[in-house]
């Protein structure tokens, strides 16, 4: 490994923290989705770096591969919902979408 494992883990930790802040503070639904992508990518970095140092390198990369695919799926459905909401509520601000049934 070119750089010691701890540094990469710290990097992904900070990335995860930033993503968490984003999810909690963003008012715009798409902003939240962007932060969720950040979280998933932080996790991916961990997986890949661990696969580099573990006995079974295949597991880490495969897991990261599946995480990327699923993130794409999540983003697709999430954004479809956002578009549907925008069409009916004419807004994507999360704190304006509170009624369970309209």
């Amino acid at each position, binding site marked *: 490994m*070119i750089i010691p494992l701890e540094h990469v883990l710290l990097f992904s930790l900070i990335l995860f923290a930033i993503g968490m802040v984003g999810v909690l503070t963003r008012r715009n639904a798409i902003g939240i989705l962007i932060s969720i992508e950040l979280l998933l990518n932080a996790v991916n970095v961990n997986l890949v770096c661990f696969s580099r140092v573990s006995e079974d*390198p295949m597991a880490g990369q495969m897991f990261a591969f599946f995480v*990327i695919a699923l993130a794409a799926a999540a983003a697709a459905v999430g954004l479809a919902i956002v578009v549907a909401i925008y069409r009916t509520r004419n807004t994507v601000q999360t704190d304006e979408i509170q009624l369970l049934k309209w």
Partner: protein
Amino acid sequence: MPQLEFLIKCGVYGLMGLGIIAAVGAVLLPNLFHAGLALAFVLVTIAGIFMSVGAEFLGMVQILLYVGGVMTLIIYTIMLTGRLGAKDVRAQNRQGIFAAIAAGFFVCWIGPLILKTGAWPQRESDSAPPLLSVEDLGMSLMTEYVFPFEVLGVLLFAVLIGAIVIARQDRPS
């Protein structure tokens, strides 16, 4: 070639630094379009880190899938939902302080844990495991991980149809 090692190390640390700055940008920028582009930059830096660690295939898939696919989706939605960057709309709600405290607590708790545990399964000492080539990934995908691969296929198919049905404009009902 220790000097080259040093150069690559600088490169990787540089990438990480840029990644963090871009991530902060993605979270805090008021104009959503700029936030989306900052996220694209984060994804490219992470692909760079993957490649520096030797997972070239994964880095390329990351760029192809994330930057090519998901980013386009995000920007399309931003364009469709139009009224972005409207100055009066506050981008962040008032939970800023609480979120910062929570994240800070999280980092201060986990960070030292990482640093304290010295004995990571360091295989570095004896022999660096052979770089995974695309053939091994392909073979394992088809042999060891074939079940999740097929389930993933079915799932993506369902997502495809679901997204279209949800976002369709001329709803028959």
